[in-house]
């Protein structure tokens, strides 16, 4: 395992190279949808609600946070790859990954949470703050949230090599989430993210910028279909090692259905990601969309 030689200059250069087209795209999308929700009534300045059913959509976070004082229990399950067909009933009898966690809404816009994931014995602490909420009149055209996740690998220290330090266990994920609700049925969001691991496997980079595009469409008042596409930006300017392209992480496609009730949200989907924890997914995914490396997963959320 190799420690980080993280360079802030490299990151800044890379960030600005994709920021401009990102915001240009956002401006075009928003100007096109400006009148879909526009109202000149007493609700004009009210915040838009129900952009997404919950703070989690498949593998990605959304701009939604729990209400102030509300607890959420999350159960996330990923079966094995479907590639073996009936041999392991499309991954149901294969090795699976599980995460359980709780989130708590400290205010209407700020939540903190803790969870643990089976693979790599990851202990996670995460938080999300929504600093803009879209309004009915689109005077604020988007909801914007900042999400951060700190994971601690709690495996035995022998897996980290000889010169072990506690910091080797840490992995970070930060994401800016920009969402727009077009109407009662359709919401889309774009979310650039930055992943950093203090220590990684040989030839695996320590940093990765990625972009996530996701959305949902309601098909009945309580059921939706959704998709998510995650693209790690494997750009040469950011490479730590000349031959690190051999370990480039793969993109992810998730698609599935969601049922939301007053107290529960159920999501069943197919995905390339098996890590559940976002930083593991972004940096280590080897399942290829083109090769059909999909698995079945589900998320259950209980509010109380």
């Amino acid at each position, binding site marked *: 395992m190799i420690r980080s030689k993280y360079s802030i200059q490299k990151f800044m250069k890379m960030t600005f190279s994709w920021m401009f087209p990102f915001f240009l795209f956002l401006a075009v999308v928003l100007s096109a949808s400006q009148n879909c929700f526009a109202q000149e*009534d*007493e*609700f004009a300045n*009210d*915040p*838009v*609600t*129900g952009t997404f059913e919950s703070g989690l959509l498949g593998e990605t976070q959304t701009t939604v946070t729990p*209400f*102030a*004082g*509300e607890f959420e229990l999350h159960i996330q399950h990923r079966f094995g790859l479907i590639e073996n067909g009936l041999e392991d009933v499309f991954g149901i009898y294969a090795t699976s990954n599980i995460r359980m966690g709780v989130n708590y809404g400290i205010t209407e816009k700020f939540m903190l949470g803790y969870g643990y994931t089976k693979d790599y014995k990851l202990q996670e602490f995460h938080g999300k703050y929504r600093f803009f909420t879209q309004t*009915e009149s689109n005077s604020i055209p988007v909801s914007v949230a900042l999400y951060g996740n700190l994971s601690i690998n709690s495996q035995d220290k022998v897996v980290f090599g000889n010169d072990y330090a506690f910091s080797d266990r840490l992995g970070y994920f930060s994401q800016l989430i920009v969402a727009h609700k077009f109407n*009662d049925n359709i919401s889309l969001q774009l979310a650039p993210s930055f992943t950093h691991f203090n220590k990684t496997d040989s030839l695996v980079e320590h940093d990765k910028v990625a972009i996530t595009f996701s959305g949902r469409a*309601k098909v*009945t*008042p*309580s059921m939706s279909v959704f998709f998510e596409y995650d693209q790690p930006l494997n750009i040469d300017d950011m490479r730590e090692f000349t031959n690190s392209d051999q370990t480039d992480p793969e993109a992810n496609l998730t698609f599935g259905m969601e049922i*939301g*009730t*007053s107290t529960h949200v159920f999501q069943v989907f197919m995905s390339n990601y098996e890590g559940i924890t976002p930083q593991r997914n972004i940096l280590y995914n080897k399942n290829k969309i083109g090769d059909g490396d999909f698995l079945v997963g589900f998320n259950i959320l209980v509010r109380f």
Partner: protein
Amino acid sequence: MKKMKFFILIAIAVVGFAFTAQQKKAEVWKVPAEYKTMENPLANDKASVNTGKMVYMKHCRSCHGNAGLGDGPKAARLKTFPGDFSSAEFQGQSDGEIMYKAIFGRDDMPNYETKIPSKKERWAVVNYMRTFKK
């Protein structure tokens, strides 16, 4: 052994009937005067009814039923009958009265102030409940 099975069946039936028989009709619900006369600012059009339907199906359907008859899957477990929204008695209330009861709740009926924070959605669900009128 046969006698034992018979008594167990009788016991289950008695317990079952005991629970169903306990459900009572709701007592009179006093609504503050300001809500009784409060006007619904949301036009009763197709868009608002659709929005109201989404809110109703998410938060209300499980007790009040798809058609507002009080026959949702959770209704039988309630101490109080959730009401028949298609009845003349229910539909005779003002929009403000219905909104007050739907959002603030009492006893078995939960408070939805935090779960339905949008004023627009609160009035939209009233517009949807008006479609249950026979």
